[in-house]
């Protein structure tokens, strides 16, 4: 008797919808085992992770704040992945966007520049991220370099560039030598939505991005082309589609969204440029994109869910002394299960018995 994977005659739409839920379920089971091995009560640990943040007003706002960059980046990544372009470097595009936008904030610091500063910063962030995203895309299209490697390696370049700037030319002279710029002026800061709260305008921008992503994919020529090029490259060449142009476009949009998320994060919750502005948003957004089925609405839900794991992880660290790295383990296990469960859309498990006589009973 053996267990085999058998190809389904047709892809199962039901499984396609519930596969992320199965993945989350399996992740929770695995995490419980992990918590038990760490000597913590799994039930209360999961409670701290997933229930406590949802019943506290401050945490709810914080979830939305954390979900904002995740969702924005993941929408861009989903376009890349749909087009079969594997942008792994959103983290770098996020950092470069933050740097590009911060340049204006630093340059206008202390001047009486008007309210045009913030929109211009957002624009600069998007342009910076897009240009940075185009580097691996051009290398792929022009030289056939693997975009997976180049985009990933550029993350570290961006990280070091940011480090250099905040330790060198852009360091706050009154900052006691801490590697950070001075606090941005009010005109260079993303306004909060509720007085005294944490929720800021970026959340609204993220929702607009979700809507725009949904419209782009469902209703526009470019969206159609992106889906064709990704789903059937041979057929796309047959139809005379310019797949190189679409790869460039997908990387540019993806980079722009990551870059804008970067400058929103810096000009919003952080308030100044410093190293460590991202707890790995660019990488976690990959999980968000797949957990959300590369679908804008799904990505919104998945982004909120993964933001919850960040907040829950912080609370678990405080309340139960669970290391913050467990959150990363959690996210990694989740991506693993999402991808694994997706094979059930096209395949199903089947028990095979050695003797045909026995197998008749099983049909």
């Amino acid at each position: 008797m053996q267990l085999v994977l058998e190809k389904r005659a047709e892809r199962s739409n039901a499984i396609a919808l519930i596969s992320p839920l199965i993945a989350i379920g399996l992740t929770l089971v695995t995490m419980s085992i992990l918590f038990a091995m760490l000597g913590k009560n799994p039930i209360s640990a999961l409670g701290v992770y997933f229930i406590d943040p949802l019943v506290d007003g401050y945490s709810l706002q914080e979830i939305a704040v954390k979900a904002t960059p995740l969702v924005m980046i993941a929408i861009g990544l989903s376009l890349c992945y749909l087009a079969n372009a594997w942008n792994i470097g959103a983290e770098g595009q996020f950092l470069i966007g933050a740097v590009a936008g911060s340049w204006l904030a630093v340059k206008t610091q202390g001047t009486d520049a008007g309210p045009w500063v913030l929109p211009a910063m957002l624009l600069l962030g998007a342009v910076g991220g897009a240009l940075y995203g185009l580097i691996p895309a051009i290398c792929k299209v022009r030289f056939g370099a693997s975009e997976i490697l180049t985009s990933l390696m550029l993350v570290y370049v961006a990280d070091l560039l940011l480090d250099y700037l905040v330790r060198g030319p852009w360091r706050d002279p009154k900052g006691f030598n801490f590697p950070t710029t001075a606090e941005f002026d009010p005109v260079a800061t993303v306004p909060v939505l509720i007085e005294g709260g944490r929720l800021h305008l970026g959340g609204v921008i993220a929702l607009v991005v979700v809507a725009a992503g949904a419209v782009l994919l469902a209703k526009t020529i470019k969206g159609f082309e992106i889906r064709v090029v990704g789903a059937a490259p041979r057929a796309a060449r047959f139809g005379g589609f310019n797949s190189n142009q679409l790869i460039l476009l997908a990387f540019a949009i993806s980079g722009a969204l990551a870059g804008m998320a970067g400058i929103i994060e810096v000009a919003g919750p952080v308030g100044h440029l410093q190293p460590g502005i991202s707890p790995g948003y660019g990488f976690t957004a990959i999980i968000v994109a797949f957990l959300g089925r590369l679908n804008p609405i799904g990505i919104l839900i998945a982004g909120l869910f993964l933001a919850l794991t960040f907040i829950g992880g912080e609370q678990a660290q405080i309340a139960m002394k669970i290391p913050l790295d467990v959150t990363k383990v959690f996210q990694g296990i989740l991506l693993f299960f999402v991808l694994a469960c997706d094979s059930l859309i096209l395949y199903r498990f089947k028990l095979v018995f050695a003797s045909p006589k026995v197998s008749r009973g099983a049909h």
Partner: protein
Amino acid sequence: MIIGETPLPEGPLGVDAVAVTMKFGDFLALDNVALKVRPGSFHALLGENGAGKSTLVKCIMGYYHATEGDILVGGREQAIANPKDAHALGLGMVYQHFTLVPAMTVAENLVLARDDVPAVVNWAREKQELEAFLARMPFKVPLNARVSDISAGERQKCEILKQLYLKRRFLILDEPTSVLTPGEADEVLGMLRDMVVNGGLTILMITHKFREVMAFADEVTILRRGKLAGNGKVADLTPDSMARMMIGAEELTVQPPRVGQLGEARLELSKLCAIDDAGAVAVHDVSLTVRGGEIVGIAGVSGNGQRQLVEVLAGQREAESGEVRVRGDLYSASREEMRRHRMSLLPEEPLKNACVGGMSVADNIAFREFDRAPFATRGWWLNRSAFRKDAERKIGLYKIKTRSPDTPISALSGGNVQRAVLARELGGEVEVLIAANPCFGLDFAAVAQIHAEIMAARNRGAAVLLVSEDLDELLELSDRLVVMFHGQFVHEARASEADLTEIGRHMAGH
């Protein structure tokens, strides 16, 4: 096999499949099918693609386990759990595609196929035994030649010899002549026929060629859509009566007569070269002109560069050198050029080459025109209702069987996928049509419809390039016939004056 059981009878084996039913999930692939192959007979298994022929022989060979029913070998019920069991009983199968190792010699291939290959092979002795074995066989193959150096016909003979060398007494041949020239096919089947007549061998041949059934088989079993449609002695049947059993009551599209005049040159290839995926030259210095109102057929055994040639024309492969002109303009298979010149393509394996499997039938039908009015407005927005309306019209016109225009196209049967591609490619005006094995794997109704459409496009003045491995199809449709061998055009003839043996010789490279 159980120890102590009486051994199977000597000589040729008979195989009976009794009331075999095979279900794949909800799909009934075989419905209470009976097949009786008498020992020492040449039996043909006839049916359209998807009729269940392959499923039935796979049940016999132990690849599938029938949901219901029994397999009798030599008159005794056998539980065949896997192909190894089938081999032990003396059943062997020759596949449509070759299973020999190209880099090894014929002798090495034969010896290594045995179950009991010793750790150290005494090649001198094995060679001697092989020579002795070959002396008893009607086929002659060069034992010391590499498989990659011998022709398709010789390879097919090796495949059959391998089965005989392994002492198989019941041979299943799955469309054994599909890769052979007509001359080679007659030679191989004739020799097999002699072996059956002389005793010692039983043959079950899957085919869809009536000519081969009439010439070589004693008895025939015909399947239609998973059911037994008829059986009997070939001597009592005619190709017409067999065709009726295969097709059933379905009415076939009538092909329009060949009319119209030759127009100006539409498609010109000059000194075109292309390489295959492995980097070997696949298309070598090919030049050809196709004029409006004519069908030029390209004949050739599969693997002689036809696929790469079509891929270059479809934009799926870059030419190494040479040029393609359409109506005098240089052509590089861009969307804009395809549209301007009203190019249409019917590639082989349409689901893989010309469709996006996960997208809907409507999306796939709109695949060429989606970025133009009425499907798109203001160069940016898609008009979904236009997609749907156009799809609904074409689904009706081309008799595409689908649940709705929103069904993913991969859920459709092969014939209906090809119909959808046909609707897309031939639904508008066509000036140049390139078709590659457009009917491969399709049922009669779809084939008749596609042939009629191609002829109609020609009659309306389109230049048609038809690449096919099916000589009958080429002779039926073409005005001119070109034979492709090793990437080159080696022979050209008017189809009406074409000599089948002459073409066969050129296909084999002589």
